[in-house]
């Protein structure tokens, strides 16, 4: 049964670069949590290993077979989101985590990959030329259910990431622009009304999200401290474990969302550039895999993963450098956190899967 060509076509380089960036993440986390008692970097190694395990599972089954159970996976993930909302066995943090035995997972993080897989499966079925209005509204329906549930948690940052993934997939699937405009334009028109429906504290939250300086003691302070960390890193950086902004705890969440500030402070512009270069390599490899994939499902799936990675990197690095609003989005590969690492590696697993089966 097992086809030797699969091994032949395995993309070792993509796996190697992925591991390299993950390893870099562990090292930066080591520095970022050097002052804390908990050994987060050890845990991160466990997460990466678990991610590799998940990746292996993903690779070993043909992505088209995965596609056949996509709707079931989608349903299970939605149920998990509902369980989180109902205050199921959540952990002490904000109600986003589900506890399973010793560790907790974030169903909203896994929803991203489930959502991509489901849409890819959907577009496999619809024939190329029959790009119709249905191909916009059924995916929209598939988007709105998890979106509403995640907004409700409330996890605005994660919820919003589903939207660019959704639009990118419509674009890649070849949906005509006039159909896409059928949902984009009404959404823009509806926005002012939605604003009026919000409660004052919800508006405040969005205003701070868009303009961190509206909250000088919270987001605004974090932003300026992050910019100081990045800027003071200069060309070569202050050196490993030498970042003062990092070591003196002026950075918020310096081992999760703000990991790139630590990296930029200690490893400088060179380090940041190299890291972004490696991630860009992974992403471009993804577009290449999409380009050469054998079928439409593989193409949409690969591009969905590419879109998700790109969006996360752009928002996260944009955030720590003051280009983008402060959201709670992790940096793929580098930020500490099991759900993020495992989801990212599952995504890479699908890329490898599509590539090695491009001839079969």
């Amino acid at each position, binding site marked *: 049964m097992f086809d030797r060509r699969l091994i032949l076509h395995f993309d070792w380089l993509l796996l190697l670069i992925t591991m390299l960036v993950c390893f870099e993440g562990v090292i930066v986390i080591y520095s970022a949590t050097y002052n804390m008692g908990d050994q987060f970097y050890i845990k991160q190694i466990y997460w990466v290993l678990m991610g590799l395990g998940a990746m292996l599972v993903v690779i070993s089954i043909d992505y088209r077979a995965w596609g056949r159970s996509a709707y079931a996976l989608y349903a299970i993930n939605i149920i998990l989101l509902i369980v989180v909302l109902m205050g199921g066995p959540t952990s002490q943090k904000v109600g986003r985590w589900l506890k399973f035995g010793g560790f907790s997972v974030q169903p909203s993080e896994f929803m991203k990959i489930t959502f991509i897989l489901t849409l890819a499966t959907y577009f496999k079925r619809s024939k*190329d*030329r029959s*790009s119709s209005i249905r191909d916009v509204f059924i995916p929209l329906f598939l988007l709105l259910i998890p979106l509403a549930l995640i907004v409700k948690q409330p996890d605005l940052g994660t919820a919003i990431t589903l939207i660019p993934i959704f639009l*990118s997939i419509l*674009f*890649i*699937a*070849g949906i005509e622009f006039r159909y896409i405009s059928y949902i984009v334009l009404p959404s823009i028109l509806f926005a002012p009304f939605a604003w009026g429906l919000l409660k004052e504290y919800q508006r405040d939250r969005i205003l701070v999200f868009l303009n961190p*300086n509206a*909250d*000088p*003691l919270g987001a*605004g*302070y974090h932003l*300026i*401290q992050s*910019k*100081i*960390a*990045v*800027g*003071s*890193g*200069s*060309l070569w950086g202050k050196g490993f474990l030498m970042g*003062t*902004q990092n070591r*003196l*705890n*002026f950075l918020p969440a310096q081992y999760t969302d703000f990991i790139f500030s630590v990296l*930029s402070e200690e490893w*400088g*512009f060179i380090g*940041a*550039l190299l890291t*972004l270069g490696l991630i*860009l390599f992974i*992403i*471009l490899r993804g*577009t290449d895999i*999409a*380009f050469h994939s054998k079928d*439409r499902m593989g*193409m949409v799936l690969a*591009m969905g993963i*590419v*879109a998700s990675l*790109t969006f996360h*990197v*752009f928002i996260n*690095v*944009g955030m720590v*450098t*003051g*280009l983008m609003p402060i959201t709670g989005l992790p940096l793929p590969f580098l930020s500490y956190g099991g759900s993020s690492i495992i989801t990212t590696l599952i995504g890479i697993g699908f890329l490898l899967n599509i590539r090695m089966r491009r001839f079969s």
Partner: protein
Amino acid sequence: MRISSKGTYLHKKRRILAFTFLVIIAFATLILRLWYLQIIQYATYSDLSKNNRIRLVRIKSPRGIIYDKNMIPLVTNRPVFDASLIKEDISGKLKDVLKPVSGFLKMDPAQLKALVAQKHQPFQPIVLKHNLDFKEVAQLEEHQLELSGIMVQVSPGRSYPFGQLAAHLLGYMGEISERQLKRPQYRKFKLGDFIGQAGIEKTFNSVLTGTDGGKQVEVNAQGRELKVLGELEPKPGLNLILTLDSRLQMLAEKLFEEKTGALVALNPQNGKVLCMVSKPAFDPNKFATGISQLEWNKILSDSNDPLQNRVIQSYYPPGSVFKILTATAALEENIIDSATSLTCNGVFRLGRGSYDCWKRGGHGKLQVHQALVHSCNVFFYQLGNRLGIENIAYWAFKMGLGKATGIDLPDEKTGLVPTPEWKLKNIGEKWQPGETISISIGQGYLSVTPIQLANLVSAIANGGILYKPWIVDRILNADGQTKRIYHPEVLAKPSPADSTLQIIRRGLYGVVNEQGTGARARVAGLSIAGKTGTAQVVSKQATAETDGEEIPLELKDHAWFVAFAPVDNAEIALAVMVEHGGHGGSASAPIARELIKEYFKLKGTWPPLKKAPPASTS
């Protein structure tokens, strides 16, 4: 067909290329941004990163103000100056800064050194001394340039303009303890914060506490503020209006000058606390900014325990005041009616024991009315004997004894209503019939707090309803708008029959107005009802051994007096306890009289303009 299909396929490949182009633009944007921050702006950010030049400064919010019912402020805020040090801002040697500072602040250099040596977060100010006086502030400000890292911080501190007035009720402030920090209700506090540690300050701590603000500032290399980058105003806490009348409170405290004891007056129609005195007291101002070790030791070693709120935390045997309850129980259980006569010949015998009346030779034949008026022990021994301990305890619990009243003050005690089960469980002995006899006149294991007795007479006065005593009437926000209004809360409705209450009220009126034991509480033109009580400190035999006058103070009995007025539709009910006061009739009744007089004087209905009609009697 085939061609068009092929066309869309290529079309889609074009879209991948377009997307790839977008990805590259996104990464180029990020890299340019990094170039801008890390290469072009490097000097600015590097400068800011040295010495933590952008800082967050917490601005403490003022606590809510506490007013009496007439909006007279009882607790306010005043600016407090603290000297603090940010170690990282010191430009020279630590020693060179600490030496002059220890002189200016009159602090022991070793103590100062120890303070600074403690572990702390970098760039967090370490408070060296709280509550500086003006001279200390002036000296530090004057030498600012030489004292790098030292700063004077202003924050709102608590002020009690009337000093000791209502100290136990208002409470005091203290630094939050490690244990309190772990409790959920103190989640928003940090080590070193002051919170209410007693009284209303404690029960309403979360209401009184505001939301701290802060500002983001840029400082120079010495840590001095250069400019404010952003600021969030602190939100003051909510204000409280109490049910308390500070004028009545002032008189009550004056009446207790040089005495030890407690007084509480309630509005019997709703449970509002009108005034509350516990003596000796303390000055909460001394706690407001952290009490000195010396002062604290002084308070702790005071055998009179000035921190104890005797109204709710001290319990005493109720003595003859309890006869109100014994009479109520006997009437309700149909053991007697108003006409039942019993004989007192000065002594009551049960088994081998004999129990004296306080009047040698006895009171002769009397009914419940005279028995209350003259506080005849033997009459009530007989009632107690017929009722049995179960019935007495049942009515005592029903009237609110043996359990907390639920007043909005912390750490209320319950007192004790003994039962045979209680004795077997806690002392391990069987109940003796003689004990029931003692209980029936309020002695034995029985113990009550002053607030319980005030609540009990309130129920007698208002027709049988036990209200929860309450102090905070409403909550206002900083703009003076009402946020919350509190309403009377019924604890229980023991509701003895109206006829029973009528008999008791007439009897208590007689205590004051018919040459009874409480005659010294009588005021012409006011219909006051009351009951005296004497809580034995040592047994009768012990006092008998010391002859008459020579009884040392600490062996003298505690003096109770409970009262309400007017006897019908009472507006004020109170309990007075003078520790070691001797007899209730002589020590406590005059205090009750003066307080009731003041109450009606403040209300404007006493003294009457014309001669008042004689008060009703049955």
